[in-house]
């Protein structure tokens, strides 16, 4: 490793200060070209998703819901038929960038709208699962020895985690989503509620190890309140594996949503997600292959980006793998 050049470039001063842990992690992360390209893809995606939300719902430039029956099944980059489409229904520039679907809706507009929905499903589901995981794992790692009647907190929470691990996850999600009324929020919540177990276990293991460390013992000796010890001193030190599993979890949630859409239990119309565009596009794989390939490849690229970034983070945040 050419340490000196890198840290010099970072500091930009004559006398480079020592690297902060964050800078060190970034330096290792940057080295991994796959992870870096994943990060770029994700940055573009987040911008696209925000733009999609703005342009399809607030300032409607691309209307994903406009039905133009004369223009159905047009391949990408086809111009509109100006004689048949009223001016109010024309897409920007008069060209369907990604073609149209079976109802003549603009696939580009639908993909834009879907990018926000798909991403928010991923982020909110993972947000729920990480919150539950940190709370339960932290409780059982920090207050594990407290007795509640006969059994300790640790036993109680870990048995509950074991119970949740025994459910076949996808089958459980499918059951609950199918029985509940169809709604995008139910899907987020159900995916979140069924995927926190790994996080809880990580956090518990980290907390058990951290509790014995000198800096925590010192903080306790100083008489700091427990909430401060937990949230200021222990959580930041335990967050690395959580961050990694959260990144990979977003990828998993997007895939799960597309699987649910495939089985007909995903986000219901008129909302477009990449999953349900793909699921409805499979009927036209011969006649209009772009309806199938565009969302499929989009999901593939984004999920791949999340997985690569997660793996890059794992390398960058794991102190044991450093300096090799």
């Amino acid at each position, binding site marked *: 490793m050419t340490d000196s050049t890198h840290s010099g470039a970072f500091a930009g001063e004559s006398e480079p200060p020592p690297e902060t842990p964050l800078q060190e992690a970034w330096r290792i992360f940057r080295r991994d070209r796959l992870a870096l390209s994943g990060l770029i893809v994700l940055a573009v995606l987040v911008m696209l998703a925000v733009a999609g939300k703005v342009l399809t719902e607030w300032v409607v430039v691309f209307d994903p819901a406009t039905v133009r029956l004369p223009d159905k099944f047009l391949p990408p980059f086809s111009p509109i038929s100006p004689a048949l489409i009223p001016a109010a229904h024309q897409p920007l520039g008069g060209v369907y960038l990604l073609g149209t679907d079976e109802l003549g809706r603009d696939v580009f507009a639908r993909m834009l709208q879907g990018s926000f929905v798909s991403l928010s499903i991923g982020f909110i589901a993972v947000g729920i699962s990480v919150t539950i995981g940190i709370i339960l794992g932290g409780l059982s790692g920090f207050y594990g020895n407290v007795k509640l009647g006969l059994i300790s907190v640790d036993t109680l929470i870990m048995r509950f985690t*074991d119970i949740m691990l025994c459910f076949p996850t996808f089958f459980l999600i499918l059951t609950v989503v199918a029985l509940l009324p169809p709604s995008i929020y139910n899907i987020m919540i159900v995916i979140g509620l069924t995927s926190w177990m790994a996080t809880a276990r990580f956090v518990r293991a980290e907390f058990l190890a951290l509790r014995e460390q000198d800096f925590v013992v010192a903080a306790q000796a100083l008489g700091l309140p427990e909430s401060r010890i937990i949230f200021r001193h222990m959580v930041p030190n335990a967050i690395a594996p959580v961050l990694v599993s959260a990144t990979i979890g977003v990828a998993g949630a997007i895939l799960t949503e597309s699987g649910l859409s495939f089985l007909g239990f995903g986000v219901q119309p008129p909302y477009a997600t990449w999953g349900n565009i*793909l699921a409805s596009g499979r009927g036209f794989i011969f006649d209009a292959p772009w309806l199938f390939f565009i969302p499929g490849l989009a999901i593939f690229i984004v999920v791949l980006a999340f*997985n690569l970034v997660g793996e890059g983070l794992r390398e960058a945040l794991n102190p044991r793998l450093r300096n090799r």
Partner: protein
Amino acid sequence: MWVFLLRAILQRLVLLVVISMIAFSIVHLAPGEPSEVDPANPRMKPEDIARIRAAFHLDEPLSVQYVYWLRDLATGELKSFKDSQPVLPKIWRRFLNSLPLFICATLIVWSLSFPTGIQAAIQRGSPFDRTTTFVAYAFISIPGFFLSYLAIQWVVDLFNVPIIGMRTFGMENAQPAFRWMDRLWHLVVPSVMSAIAGIAILSRYVRSQMLEVVRQDYVRTARAKGLPEESVIYRHALRNALLPFVTMFGFLLPGLIGGSVIFEQIFAWPGLGRLGYEAILARDFPVILTINFIAATLTLAGTLVSDILYAVADPRIRLQ
């Protein structure tokens, strides 16, 4: 040892009861009942609905329904709401259909991911390692049904064989050799497709295990005393790297139910996952709950088996 076994089994029985209670309440408390599957039917009068509810004990309190379900399951008299067939034989038939698919997929996963993972770990940073790493990520990230549709299209175009379902309709009277070829064609594509994610995950896991072990002191010692590289890798490192995978045998069986829904749906394979899917659509509570119960039992049995296997394989671990 025996004390450990007894305690582990008792613990798991308690867990199983709690799991079945949770599953029971989730399924029954969610809105929607089997009696409401067809609300648009004008012939369904309120008294008919009441009769259906009474026949399925749906008008009783939840706790009583749970006891009924448990009793019927134990005596084997549990009947499906949908067609009044006994549930256990129904599940057993579907299980037998799922089994070849599962065995085939597992064989593919294990026989491909170990060599790949080991090779990638030995040649860390080489083009081979980087290629397999990228391919593994690609395999994890691709939506299974997207790839399956492409595969179906490709296989049918190229080889001109039908592959949807378990066998081709009308082949019952063909020569045994043709029948077997037909079965094989129908089996190969779905098992490869359901194996793909598994290959990616397992080969990554094997690679990281191998990397972990190669850095250990005993491997350095083996090198230092001048053993040939093959002997170091395959006799000293590999054996220790394999330890965690012994336990994975225990977790194989639950996978039979979990991930198969989508693939069985795509390939119209009449297996367990598809039975579960149909049961969910029809609000067939006994079937949903029994499949869930069996999955939980298999998982718990799997963890027990893996604990025992671990203790047998690794002398550093004592059961207590």
